C-alpha cells in the first residue's frame, strides 16, 4: 500500500507516539481524556509483590510468550488422547485465528464490523466450491487456500467500498445487513437463477480434506477419532498470521490504523489516506476470516448456512473485547478463555463446578481476603443450610430433585440448594426475573447493605442455576456472553490486556 503521507514528516512524531504508548512511570500522558482517566488506566503500575511480578513479566519478549503458548497448546494432544479434547483444541485454534482477524478491524481500525462472520462463511463456502464433488472441482489445498484468501480479501474490499464513507453505527448496520444478505443467499442458493450454487439449507457435502505435499490428511483417525494434525496445521497458520500481523501493526500502516481509530478526522487532516486504510483493515480481517473458514470446511467435509449465524459473531466479539481489543495477546487469551468457557457450559457437571468456582473467585476478587469476605461466604453457606433444612422439613419433595454430576460440588449443591423434584411452571420465570432485578439493585446499594443483599442473591443465583440454567446450555451460554459484554463495557472496556485507548469526540 502506498501511503499518501510523507514518511519524512511523520518520523519525528513516531518517537512521541512510542513514548506515550510504552509503559512506564515517566511516559507523558498524551491526550488522556476524562473518560479514560476514570477507568483506571492512569495507574503507572501496581505496588507490592504483584507490581514487581508485573515488572518482571513485562521484560519477557513477545516471541517468548508466543513460543511458550504454542508449545503448551501443542502439548494438548500429547497429554490427552481423547478425541473430544483434541477437537475442542482445534475449535479454540480456529477461534484464535478469527479473533486475530476481528482485532484488525475492530481493535486497530476501530470499525465496528458486524458482518465479519460472513467472511468466515465465504471462506468456508469458497473452499467447498473449489474442492468438493459439488462442481467436481478438486483443487489441492496449496492452490485452493491461497485462492480463498484472495477471494475473502476481495469481497472484504468490495463490501468496504460502499461503506467507506460510513462511520460507527451506520457501518455496523451495513455490515450486519451484509451478514444477513450472505445468510439469505446461501440459504436460498440452491436455486440461484436456476443453478444450485450453495446447496441451500442442506449445504454442500463431501468437501475434500486438506492435502499437504501430496498427502491427504484424513479428518478422522482409525476409530473415528479427530485427527490432531488439523489442530497442528491451524496452529501453524495461527503463528504465521500472528507474527505477520504483529509486523503490520508495527509498520507505518499499523500506526496509521491506530490514528484512524483514535480520531478519523484528525487522521484525515494529517493527510492519511483514510478511505484506503479502512478498506485495507476490512480486507485484512476478511482474508483471515476466510482463511479460518477453509479449515473448518476441510475438517468437517461439509458447510451449512446456519454455521455462520449472528451467535458466532457475538462469541468472537466477546473474545476480542474480553481479551482487550487492540492487543494481540489479549484477543488470543480471550479466545482461549471464552472457548473453554463455552465448552465447559455444555456439560452439567463441568458447568456446575465452573459456576461455583466463578462465584467464589468473583467474590474474592472484589472483597479480597477481608472480614467482609468471611461474612459473605459464611453468611451464604449458613443461609443456604437454614433455607434447605426449613424447606426439607416442610416437604421432602422440595429438596430431593437434584442428583447431577460434578463430584463433590454436586454433593454439596444437593445438600445446600433447594432443587424440587417437580418445578412449578411459575417458579423459573419468577426466580430468574427476581435474580436479575436484585442483581441490578446490587449495583445501586453500597457498604453493608450490599453485603446483606449479596447473601440472598448468591443463594438465589445458585437456585436459578441448579433449577433453570444448568439443563439448558444453549440459551445459558448466550446469556452469559451478553452479561460479559455489558459488564465489560461498563466496568473494564479495555478488557484483560487491552491497550490504552484514547478516544476524543
Amino acid at each position, binding site marked *: 500500500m502506498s501511503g499518501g503521507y510523507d514518511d519524512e514528516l511523520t518520523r519525528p512524531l513516531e518517537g512521541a507516539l512510542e513514548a506515550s504508548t510504552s509503559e512506564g512511570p515517566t511516559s507523558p500522558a498524551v491526550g488522556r481524556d*476524562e*473518560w479514560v482517566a476514570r477507568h483506571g488506566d492512569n495507574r503507572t503500575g501496581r505496588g507490592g509483590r504483584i507490581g514487581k511480578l508485573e515488572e518482571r513479566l513485562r521484560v519477557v519478549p513477545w516471541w517468548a510468550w508466543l513460543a511458550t503458548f504454542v508449545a503448551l497448546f501443542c502439548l494438548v494432544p500429547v497429554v490427552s488422547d481423547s478425541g473430544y479434547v483434541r477437537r475442542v483444541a482445534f475449535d479454540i485454534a480456529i477461534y484464535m485465528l478469527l479473533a486475530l482477524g476481528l482485532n484488525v478491524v475492530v481493535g486497530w481500525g*476501530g470499525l*465496528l464490523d458486524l458482518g465479519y462472520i460472513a467472511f468466515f462463511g465465504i471462506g468456508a463456502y469458497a473452499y467447498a466450491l473449489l474442492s468438493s464433488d459439488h462442481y467436481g472441482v478438486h483443487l489441492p489445498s496449496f492452490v485452493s487456500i491461497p485462492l480463498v484468501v484472495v477471494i475473502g480479501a476481495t469481497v472484504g474490499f468490495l463490501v468496504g467500498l*460502499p*461503506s467507506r*464513507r*460510513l462511520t*460507527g*453505527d*451506520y457501518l*455496523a*448496520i*451495513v455490515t*450486519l*445487513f*451484509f451478514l*444477513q*444478505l450472505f445468510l*439469505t*443467499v446461501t440459504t*436460498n442458493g440452491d*436455486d440461484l437463477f436456476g443453478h444450485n450454487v450453495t446447496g441451500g439449507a442442506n449445504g454442500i457435502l463431501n468437501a475434500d480434506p486438506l492435502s499437504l505435499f501430496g498427502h491427504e490428511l484424513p479428518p478422522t483417525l482409525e476409530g473415528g477419532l479427530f485427527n490432531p494434525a488439523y489442530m497442528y496445521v491451524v496452529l501453524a497458520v495461527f503463528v504465521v498470521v500472528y507474527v505477520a500481523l504483529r509486523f503490520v501493526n508495527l509498520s507505518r500502516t499499523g500506526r496509521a490504523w491506530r490514528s484512524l481509530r483514535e480520531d478519523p*478526522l484528525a487522521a484525515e487532516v494529517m493527510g492519511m489516506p483514510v478511505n484506503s486504510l479502512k478498506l485495507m483493515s476490512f480486507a485484512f480481517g476478511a482474508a483471515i476470516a476466510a482463511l479460518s473458514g477453509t479449515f473448518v470446511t476441510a475438517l468437517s467435509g461439509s458447510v451449512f448456512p446456519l454455521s455462520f449465524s*449472528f451467535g458466532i459473531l*457475538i462469541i468472537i*466479539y466477546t473474545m476480542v*473485547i474480553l481479551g482487550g481489543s487492540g492487543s494481540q495477546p489479549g484477543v488470543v487469551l480471550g479466545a482461549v478463555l471464552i472457548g473453554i468457557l463455552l465448552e465447559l457450559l455444555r456439560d452439567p457437571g463441568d458447568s456446575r463446578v465452573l459456576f461455583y468456582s466463578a462465584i467464589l473467585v468473583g467474590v474474592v476478587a472484589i472483597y479480597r481476603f477481608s472480614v467482609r469476605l468471611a461474612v459473605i461466604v459464611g453468611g451464604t453457606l449458613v443461609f443456604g443450610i437454614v433455607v434447605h433444612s426449613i424447606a426439607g422439613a416442610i416437604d421432602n419433595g422440595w429438596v430431593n430433585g437434584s442428583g447431577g454430576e460434578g463430584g463433590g460440588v454436586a454433593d454439596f449443591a444437593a445438600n445446600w440448594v433447594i432443587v424440587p423434584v417437580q418445578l412449578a411452571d411459575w417458579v*423459573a*420465570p419468577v426466580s*430468574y426475573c427476581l435474580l*436479575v432485578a436484585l442483581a*441490578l439493585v446490587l*449495583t445501586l446499594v453500597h457498604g453493608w447493605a450490599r453485603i446483606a443483599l449479596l447473601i440472598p442473591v448468591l443463594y438465589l443465583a445458585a437456585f436459578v442455576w441448579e433449577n*433453570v*440454567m444448568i439443563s*439448558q446450555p*444453549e*440459551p*445459558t451460554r*448466550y*446469556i452469559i*456472553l*451478553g*452479561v*460479559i*459484554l*455489558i459488564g465489560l*463495557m*461498563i466496568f473494564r*472496556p479495555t478488557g484483560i490486556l487491552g491497550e490504552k*485507548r484514547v*478516544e476524543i*469526540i
Partner: protein
Amino acid sequence: MDTFIQLTLNGLTLGSVYALIALGYSLVYGILKLLNFAHGDVFMVGTFIGFGALQLLGGTTNPVVPAWALLALITLAAMAGCAVLGVVIERFAYRPLRDAPRIAPLISALGVSFFIAYSMQLLFGSELRSYDMFSLSGGALYTDGFDIGNVRVPMIRIITILAAFVMMILLWLLVTRTRVGKAMRATSFDREAAAMMGIDIDKVIVFAFVLGSALAGAAGVLFALRIPTYATIGFLIGLKGFTAAVIGGIGSIPGAMAGGLVLGFAESYAQGYISTRWSDLLVFILLILFLVFRPQGILGKADIRKV
C-alpha cells in the same frame, strides 16, 4: 387487481407495525445518537407479555372480558411492561456509558439484546406461540370487516392499522405540541445547550425510552395478533424496524412512519410479485442503497458534523 389490493393491504398492516418499531429507534437515536440494538428484543418481550396477559384473562376461547376490552388490556399490559423494561435497560446498560466512546454503548446494546432474547428462550422455550385470534368471538375478527373489490378487509387488519396510526399521531402531537416534547426536540438538537437551558437531560432520555419501548410493546401485540411469535424474533424484526427508521430518515418522526410504510409495501410486493424467499434480500438491498446514497433518508435532514 385483487392481488394488488391484497398486497397493498398486507403492506399497510406490516408497514404500520414496522413504523411503530421505527419510531422507537428514531426517538432514542435522535436524542442519544445511540443505535439501540435491544429495541427489537423489547418488541419481542411485548409479544410475550401480550401472550401472558391473554392467558391470564382466560385466553381467546373463553375470555373473562369482552373482546374489545381484551385487546385493549393486553396492549396496555405490553406497553407498560415494555416501558419498564426500556427504563431498566437505559438505567443499567446505557447510562453508565453515556460519555464513553460511541462503540461502547453499541457493544453493550448487543449484549443486552442477546441477554433478553436468550433469557426468554431459557424461561419459555423456543417454540412458536400464537395468540389464536381465530377463536375470539367466534372468529369475528377475521369474518367482520368490509370489502374492496373482491378483497375482504378483516377487522383484525383494521384494528392493527388504526391503532398504529392513532398512536403515531398521538406521539407526533406529544413531541410537537407539549412542553416535554419541546424538551425532547431541544435535547435532540444539542444536548449540552439544552442542559444549560435547564432541561433535565436524564429525564428526557428516560422519557424517550419509555415512549419508544411502549410503542414497541404495542407493536408487539399488534404484530402477534396475526403472526406467531418466538423468543428470538426480535433480531430480524428489530433489523427491519431500524431499516424503516433509516429509510425514513433516522431521528425524524414522520420519517419513521414513512419509512415503515415504504418497507412494508416493498416487502409485501416483493413477496407477492417476486418470491417469498427473496423478499428479505430486497429489504436488505434497499437499506444498503439508502445508507450509501442517501444516509439522511427520505425525510431526514443532512447531518452536518461539527468538530
